[in-house]
């Protein structure tokens, strides 16, 4: 694609300013961007990963439920949102750079544009304090 849709452009620009961790994917299952605050939780810099296929991303960053059970890729929030085009909210765990399982809460919203355009999804997540 020569140029991203305006909604994704605006979403990325907004995400770049916000202090809330945010990731953006398109409807073709490409991870397009995550902001600096997200980098801190993910343990990766977007400048290094760049855009990547969701499958590759999910392999690189496995997720677990609150009890520590592995979440199969298609049951993760983002694939669910891209498939079903409805929001998903969930607590889950990911492995931090020190190998520990960190608890996060994620809200994933579909991005739906004018004219029935399904553009992708945006993930807003934050780390919950450890009990």
């Amino acid at each position, binding site marked *: *694609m*020569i*140029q*991203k*849709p*305006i*909604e994704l*452009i*605006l979403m*990325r*620009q*907004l995400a*770049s*300013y916000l202090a809330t961790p945010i990731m953006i994917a398109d409807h073709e299952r490409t991870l397009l961007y995550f902001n600096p605050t997200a980098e801190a939780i993910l343990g990766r810099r977007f400048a290094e990963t760049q855009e990547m296929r969701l499958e590759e991303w999910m392999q690189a960053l496995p997720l677990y439920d609150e009890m520590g059970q592995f979440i199969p890729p298609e049951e993760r929030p983002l694939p669910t949102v891209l498939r079903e085009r409805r929001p998903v909210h969930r607590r889950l765990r990911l492995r931090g750079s020190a190998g520990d399982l960190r608890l996060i809460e994620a809200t994933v919203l579909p991005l739906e*544009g*004018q*004219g029935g*355009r399904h553009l992708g999804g945006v993930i807003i997540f934050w780390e919950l304090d450890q009990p």
Partner: protein
Amino acid sequence: MKVTLWGTRGSLAAAGPETVRYGGNTSCVEVRGDDGTVLVLDAGTGIRRLGGTLGSIASVDILLTHLHMDHLQGLGFFAPLYQPGLEVHIWGPPSSTLNLQQRLLRYLSPPLFPVRLRELPCRLTLHDVPLGRFRIGGLDLEADLVCHPGPTVGYRITAGETPVTYIPDHEPALGVQHFPSEPAWTSGFALARGAALLIHDAQYADEDYPRFVGWGHSAIRDVLAFARLAGVQRLMTFHHNPGYSDDDLDRLLEAARRTRPPFQILPGREGFTLEL
């Protein structure tokens, strides 16, 4: 393809002795294909004079970039609308909530305008612009949403191998910390890439723009950067600030040319015609 400017002013018509050379009418551009296809880009006040020059045509297509008043205000005074039986198509950006007729009726109905759409004697058809490629007569068109408050499109019109891009209201640098960034993440890039002529919003002098961030228009500096990024052959400055006199616009144009861009800069003056 022949491009004629009938209105180049933005925001508000600005008649007066100080705006005679660039003109005070708001946005309206005529594009004529070699096969006789007539496109009218936007219906600012400039459309009134255009209507008197069209002669006998079989049909006309009016493509609105958006429905802000400066791009719409002349529509009710466009003579072809009052020609019985003439085929007139009006295209506008899609909306999820209201169709184009409902949105046009906010202006083209009492008390704002005494004539109702349904009273027009022409054969009027309203269309939501498809976001993508379509064809009108012998011209290939492409429309896409661009960065401007409210649903706003730009148009790319191609005759043969010659593309002309029209983005009269555009703020591609909004929220971009170092503009321009990558082409894929730049609003309007796909429409403007390699254009033989880019007609683009140039509303603000660089020193004025900071007060109007988010208003949907561009500083000259950003327009030049956008045109450079898109690799256009010619940039025509457009949507001139109603508060800028002809002399002001001359100065801005001269300053832009001094940056020695890799494309020709043309002044967006009412009456200017370019054959491509």
